[in-house]
């Protein structure tokens, strides 16, 4: 159900943009209004969601300790997987965010007769995720050439590195290949691993298909239809300088591409894509394991009914005296 629905949704979006531009001349809407609205939704949405998270306190210090604690001085502690200092937490978070360290631990269950259970090497998910996110980042940075004048040196530098394996013209970007390969892998594993398929929701297929289609339309424009880059840059510069213009001669495919990107931005704050800002706030990762050393304060800590020693002794006094146990009141 999820797959078909998501596929239909993405196809509909493509058709809407295509038809809107081709038959109704809605260039202004798809090239200007939609991107502005999407960016507005994106920024307000993300900020709103993060503020909502921040509104809820972290009442307890609950890091997942994945390494040796700091205890006796002669026992080597694992400052990254079980940090006891702020610096350690920064290190742990950096590894988590930049290298997906927890995902790197992934293994695959092999259940064999006997029973004999094995945990096999499984780094493909980690590799594909890393590749996906980094190639997306590279593609994103490369796109800055459409929004800057003059084009910053790092964008040009990145393009040079990205096109290291030059085959023909136009330049083939490695990031394009990696991006499509990774998204395809992530989609395929979602439908062929039975457990992953079982847990997948429309909200899991939709962003994958949307992102794939964004990549595909971009690649077609670049390598096949060879769009008019000069006109496109006029449009994009118009957007960033808040003097929007719709130059002549830009094909429908471009508007489809831009519309899908707008949808992605608008969808972001209301979806699981919020894992990106969310990971920074994860209490099992971003806190030091130091609650035996310094007190962590819970802002809503409230008094609770307890059974006091006095009540206990009142209940058992005779038996305690008989057993020779000391009591407060004879």
């Amino acid at each position, binding site marked *: 159900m999820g797959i078909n629905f998501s596929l239909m949704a993405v196809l509909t979006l493509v058709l809407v943009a295509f038809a809107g531009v081709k038959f109704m001349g809605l260039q202004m809407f798809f090239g200007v209004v939609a991107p502005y609205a999407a960016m507005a939704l994106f920024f307000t949405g993300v900020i709103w969601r993060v503020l909502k998270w921040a509104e809820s306190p972290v009442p*307890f210090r*609950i890091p997942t300790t994945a390494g040796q604690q700091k205890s006796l001085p002669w026992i080597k502690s694992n400052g990254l997987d079980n940090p006891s200092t702020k610096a350690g937490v920064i290190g742990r978070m950096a590894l988590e965010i930049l290298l997906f360290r927890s*995902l790197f631990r992934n293994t695959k269950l092999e259940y064999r007769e006997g029973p004999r259970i094995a945990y096999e090497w499984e780094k493909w998910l980690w590799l594909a995720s890393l590749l996906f996110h980094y190639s997306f980042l590279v593609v994103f940075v490369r796109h800055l050439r459409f929004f800057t004048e003059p084009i910053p040196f790092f964008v040009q530098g990145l393009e040079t590195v990205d096109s290291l394996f030059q085959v023909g013209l136009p330049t083939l970007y490695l990031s394009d290949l990696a991006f499509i390969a990774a998204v395809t892998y992530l989609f395929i594993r979602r439908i062929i691993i039975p457990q992953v398929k079982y847990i997948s929701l429309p909200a899991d297929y939709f962003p994958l298909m949307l992102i794939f289609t964004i990549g595909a339309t971009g690649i077609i424009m670049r390598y096949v239809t060879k769009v008019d880059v000069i006109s496109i840059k006029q449009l994009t510069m118009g957007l960033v300088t808040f003097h929007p213009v719709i130059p002549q001669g830009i094909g429908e495919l471009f508007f489809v591409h831009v519309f899908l990107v707008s949808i992605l931005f608008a969808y972001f704050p209301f979806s699981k894509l919020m894992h990106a800002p969310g990971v920074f706030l994860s209490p099992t990762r971003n806190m030091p394991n130091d609650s035996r050393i310094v007190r962590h304060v819970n802002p809503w800590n409230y008094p609770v009914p307890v059974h006091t020693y006095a009540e206990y002794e009142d209940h058992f006094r005779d038996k305690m005296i*008989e057993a020779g146990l000391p009591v407060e009141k004879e």
Partner: protein
Amino acid sequence: MAKIPKASEMAATLSHIPPQTGWMDTPTEFKQGRWCYGAKAKNMEVLGLPNPRDWSPTDADWKLPSNWKEIILEGLRERIGRFRSLRLFMDICVRCGACADKCHFFIGSGDPKNMPVLRAELLRSVYRKEFTTAGKILGKLAGGRELTEEVFKEWFYYFFQCTECRRCSVFCPYGIDTAEITIIARELLNLVGCNIDWIAGPVANCYQNGNHLGIQPHAFKDMIEFFVDEIEALNGIRIEPTFNRKGAEILFITPSGDVFADPGTYTLMGYLMLFHEIGLDYTWSTYASEGGNFGFFTSHEMMKRLNAKMYAEAKRLGVKWILGGECGHMWRVVNQYMDTMNGPADFLEEPVSPITGTKFDSAKGTKMLHLVEFTADLIRNGKLKLDPSRNDHLNVTFHDSCNPARGMGLFEEPRYVIQNVCNNFHEMPPNTIREQTFCCGSGSGLNTDEFLDMRMRGGLPRANAVKHVHDMFGVNTLSTICAIDRAVLPPLMDYWVPGVGVAGVHEMVGNALVMEGETERTTDMRGEPLAGMEDSEDEDI
């Protein structure tokens, strides 16, 4: 006790392929041996918990209050506002599936709703439907689901099929911790009186009598004194423990399971012998006679209510600091909750070993030290005379208990102690120990007999790793630092790996400890002949 299939049968019929129907359309069937009895009215009344009544999860009518749904949704709203963890974990899961095959209950049962991601989705689906715009409008398409009585019963079934072991959270790229979700889901269930009796009973006992088993003060003293006699019979040394003694330097608290049943009792004998040998100025308490905290498996509030006794008793007795015995979830509570909930313990002093003078900086806030840390320091400073050959009849491996592992990071200390008191030690495979350790399958208050089928399933990954070292190195002893482990691993071993016994680390310390004035030791604490002493045993007879 629930009837369960033979081990070979259970293993052969196990499949991890999910059913054809989607999980929202697959009704939950309460399978024999996989659910626990409902909390009894009398136990809930002791604690003042809502909706006390006698009921069974297999009843069609759970006798919920008529406004149960409002109560649950209001409770959920309140908790979303109180716990960033919950709000975040409801929002950011991408369902990558990395956690799916990391759960011992999924590995052992193949039930897809035991995949951590799906267990969380049981709650998340309701959260989406009730608390997110997309879920309100799109419903099922956005992964949303109405909270119905069936959904509520499903929660009960599956949130009491999670041991809060946190293994999944090690693998989650966002650190989503199912334990956190289960803890809060159980809080919600408790709001309308749906706890299990194996938790509510011990909690009521602990609240009133000081410990989970309901041992009254005089009986507690009697039981410890029984072990004093046992030790005297073993090595001729008479130990004189004290109880509720004001002015002692240290208050010692350990789970009551160690007082009650073997093999935990041998661990307790080890404690007594060690403290006697080093001349520790300590006292037991009959009021704070429980290290464990089944309140933790009920609600944050109940955890606090039970845990409060530790500091209260330390203050009343005027001790300097607290020493805690071998226990699993007790140490997660002590490490991650106690000071926040019931501190600051400004009436105590920073723990210093009276024997070695070591200052334990890592416990300077809570003022509570783990016995294994304490013993490791004693050994390191050469304060104990140890004869590891007295454990030569044991071929040992070590099971990291979930909570000291993933809620504290206590890995090296127990290994250091074991390697100083035993000559034969072999680690299980790396994917099954330390932070990746597998649960015993019976933690978080699920160590009850009516749950035996699921316990054996959940314990399968652990048992399978033990079997590996049993076959390879002849390991015959599974050592551990958790009282629930000591209670539940013996039946688990009998089921999957016959021939492997279970021992606490301080039982082996007690075996190896050469005490001043002791008579010649021919047996270990269990009365089993020491290696090379098999003949002398025969002569005695």
